[in-house]
């Protein structure tokens, strides 16, 4: 059965990839995040732009390509996301 992912879940997947599953210390490329988060290029571009503007991700320009790394705010957000996912799960809901 195909699992429907909410917008919040996709953000959680992207942030957890940039925290726990980086290619190298510089950060993750868009292509890598697309593969890990299983999401289209146009959609991830919009989400990454929002996450960078909100300060949850840091954008690093290396050799002409952008890489993304989680910020301190992003780590705090991700911790809150995991905590309240469990909270909502108790009510049979998805955040």
């Amino acid at each position: 059965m195909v699992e429907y992912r909410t917008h919040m879940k996709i953000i959680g997947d992207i942030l957890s990839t940039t925290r726990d599953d980086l290619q190298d210390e510089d950060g993750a490329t868009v292509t890598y995040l697309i593969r890990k988060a299983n999401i289209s290029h146009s959609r991830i571009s919009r989400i990454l732009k929002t996450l960078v503007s909100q300060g949850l991700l840091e954008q690093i320009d290396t050799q002409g390509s952008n890489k993304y790394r989680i910020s301190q705010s992003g780590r705090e957000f991700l911790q809150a996301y995991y905590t309240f996912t469990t909270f909502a799960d108790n009510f049979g809901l998805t955040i």
Partner: protein
Amino acid sequence: MEFLLENILNLVGFLVGLAIGIMSLIGFRNTGSPTLFRLTIAFFSISVGFFVIWAGYMMEDFVIKSGNIEKWIQTLGIIVQTVGYFFIAFSHSIKSFFPKSRYFRAVGIFPLFLISSVQIEHIFRSVSFILLAYGAIETILSYFENKNKGAISVAVGLALLALGEFLGWYSFVFPESILYSISMITKIGGLIALFIPVSKIPLTKIKFDDNLE
């Protein structure tokens, strides 16, 4: 005995609703999740509903001293609680609870002007029962999907609240029986069951972050 149970129930309901409401609010402020926003409204409404009835009993006991709580206060409290139960059920994707056509709306609202507050109270009790039963069923179904044990406790809590509402409504038929006391004890049990899994959520290092709205 009934007075004591009623006070315990309303105080426990107020505190449990407030605690879960605050937790949902912290979650909403930190993540911006619409689900947590709906839960915030739901549990603050439930909390306010219980508080209104508790305040009514306190007013009656210490100020008015008529021997009976004002019916409209009890009805108001139950209506506010029902709003809370609606938002729990709505979070489980109730698409259209009220009839949409203009004719049905008119027909639906008109009888409210003809019936007394006692009957309104029982209408809202039965609506609460349906919403709570729906919430309990959806929650237990979610347990079968993700095997989260906390969901069992919440489902049992909602089911006990539903049973309590049903018994409370049924006691209208047998007003002098023990049914109303059993209804209140059942509801207290339901509220405690609802709070158990929520109390285990660790809130350390979670803080309000104004930049995430």
